């Protein structure tokens, strides 16, 4: 399964990088989203997916062992990453709107010309 997910991640990265290299700023933003999802997956995979079972401590037990559950640390990291991704996405979108409003173009190559007057 790891192999499949690893290939999937590679595919996501390939698509993301391809999108990043476009001149259109909308595609660039899509690329950022794809890559952030892929990166989250890498972190998730690094905790190991062989163990399954939710990462909670049972009602009677006092402690849990890693044998019976998914590693909780990557989950905590990804959880904040997702919410931050949400904030950053909103920010990029606002930035893009402003960029388009100011320059009237969505071609990134125009950007290099506008800042040297």
């Amino acid at each position, binding site marked *: 399964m790891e192999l499949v997910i690893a290939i999937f991640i*590679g595919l996501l990265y390939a698509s993301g990088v391809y999108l990043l290299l476009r001149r259109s700023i909308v595609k660039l933003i899509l690329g950022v989203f794809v890559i952030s999802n892929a990166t989250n997956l890498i972190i998730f995979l690094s905790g190991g997916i062989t163990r399954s079972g939710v990462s909670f401590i049972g009602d009677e037990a006092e402690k849990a062992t890693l044998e019976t559950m998914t590693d909780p640390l990557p989950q905590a990291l990804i959880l904040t990453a997702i919410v931050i991704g949400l904030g950053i996405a909103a920010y990029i979108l606002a930035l893009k709107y402003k960029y388009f409003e100011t320059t009237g173009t969505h071609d990134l190559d125009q950007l290099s010309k506008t800042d040297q007057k």
Partner: protein
Amino acid sequence: MEQLAIVLIVLIFLMGLMVPVLRPLLKNYTGRILALVPFALFGALTFLFFSLPDETARIVETGFGFLPEMQFSFRIDGLSLIFGMMVSGIGGLVLGYSSFYMAKYAGKTKFYFFLILFMGAMLGLVFADNLLALFIFWELTSITSFFLIGFDHDKDKPRQAALQALLITALGGLCLLFAVIMIGNLAGTFRLSELYSQGFHFGAHSQYQTVFLLIFVAVATKSAQFPFHFWLPGAMNAPTPISAYLHSATMVNAGIFLLLRLNPVMGGTIAWKGALILTGGITMFIGAFFSLGQKDLKRILAFTTISALGTMVMLIGMNTTASIKAALIFFIVHGLYKGGLFMVAGIIDKNTGTRDITRLSGLLKSMPVTSIAGILALLSMSGLPPMLGFIGKELIYDAKVQMPELSWLVVPLGVAANMMMVAISILVFYEIFIPRKNKPAIALLHKEKELPGNFLAGPVILALIGLGLGMAPGWLNNILSNAMFYVQSQAVDVHLTLWHGFNQVLLLSIFTVAMGTVIFILRRPVGKLVGIIIPWTDQYHLPEKFNNLISNYLSFAGKHTNRIQHGYHRYYLITFFMATLLLIVYQLLSAGGEWFHPSESSPVRMHVVLVLIISAMAVLFAVFSKSRLSAIVSMGVLGYGVAVLYMFYGAVDLAITQFLAETIIMVIFVMVIFYLPDFAVLSSKKSRIRDAIIALSVGAMMTMIVLKARFINLEEPISQFFAEKSYLEGHGRNIVNVILVDFRALDTLGEITVLALAAAGVFTLLRFNPIKKKSEK
């Protein structure tokens, strides 16, 4: 008492930092009130001055420092006392003086802020016991003097002069840093007190030449020695109080101080003697020579300062008991008369509106107090009795005559330089103070009586001290012996007297004055000669050459920066990806080992694979889609697919968050994208193929990394700790949540701050429109 002195130095720093707060409170009294602290320090130092026994140094540890090797410890010995008293005493007078001088300037807060910080830095420099601390203070004086010289930052000339001074002194600072580190490594300590007590001297060491060269550059740049002397006249663009302070007893003397400090550690070698005597001699001569051709009073003073600095460097280079003594005395002499003369020049400038000596005249009648202070200082400068300057000059001649091998060179050079000093003194005296028939007396803006006392006090006090010390030089014996002990590392008894008896040195003095008078009488032909030589040297006009060098460097750098920083976003990315690819793939392939182990991996589940395939197709669709909306929807499919994957492997919290966040992003995306144009194919086919190759390589690299990472475990996972403590100490059964709000709450705190900033950023981007605002006005 020594603790008090150190506390006062620290207080000066604090006071400097507090100036922005204090100045609105103190208003026009700022200068006068703030002057009290340096005066208090001067008082404390005077007390130490009289109570410090011979051959003792007091070390004060502050226990504060950046590193174990870099503690701010202070040493109080004869040398640091002499310099410290000049810095604090003249500093106090300058502050009082500025109160009136700067009254009409804008930016007084800035002026006091940097002047006081400069004073603090200079005091730290002379009292530092640690070479690294000394370096830090040294750099601080460079930086603060940059702001002081460039005080009139809205004018072109001061800015250029300030930049020049900064670049040159910073070059020296860099050299000093290297030298200090090398000395520290050779000696095993950065403490001056330990260096002195060990009797460490590395003159024979193989690295001595390098260290000496570095120290020499540091000194030559700071103390304006030839060929770095040219920044000093430029620095005259600063307001006069700054020139009076920087160029009498402080900034430019830091190099002299450094030489004296390091003399026991590395002085007296052949390189030391040769380099310092030669440079000092040249500097001394050209400084005096160029001063003859100047018309601006401040520029005259600047060139005589260069000459005086050269004299001191030369004396230290000679490295005999007599010469060190002469250098120390001459430092005091020079600080007293040059500080006074600069302040006199400032008073005259303020009160007549010019500093041109050809336009000034007859001031003795109209401004008697200022003139007498000025004349006393001029007497000291030309080395006439009964001023301290006379003793200084006698000692210098004495040292030169006694110099065994080199007296044939240094005596004529010294006498020539002094003759010109005498001539320039008489010239200044004659032109500006004496009432003359054929030159109308210049009109004053105020009567002298109307000028405030603290404005005139500076030069008067300095002139009187010069006179007093000339009459009773015995006051200095004690402290000089102490200073000599630490400079020469041997006990020396010092007995200063005004009258040395009739001897060879006195004859030389008489000859000097006589020849100086002759030069003065022949000033027209001499002026012509200088007038011929100056244009000739102007071909090698160093300030301009230096500026050209800097601007060429900048344009060179600019050209190459434009090539690298071309502004095309995707070429940056391509560069980045290619470099990463090469480095990481090389590393991965050379690491060897396993990539994939079927038995260790979890079983393949067909329904998960199905989800992944759907997500992958969605992404590919997004990549090639021409419609914005369908691209966004397929991004949503990818997000949900990933969420399903989380869910499947037991990360419930993650799955919920991913579903919700993805939904909200989609909604916001649609809201914004609606206002943007359709996709257009902007790149050529060729570049698309190139990009596809790069993208696929990066993807392959990431797959390799992910696979390889499973076989590399650098640290034991800490998750077991969380699993055990979560309920017992965190009182929670949801381990993920306990990690977020308890174990790693600091991370979360940082992250929610980022969220708040992102929202604030969105608000500003959307609401704030600077262009619109401008056009509305």
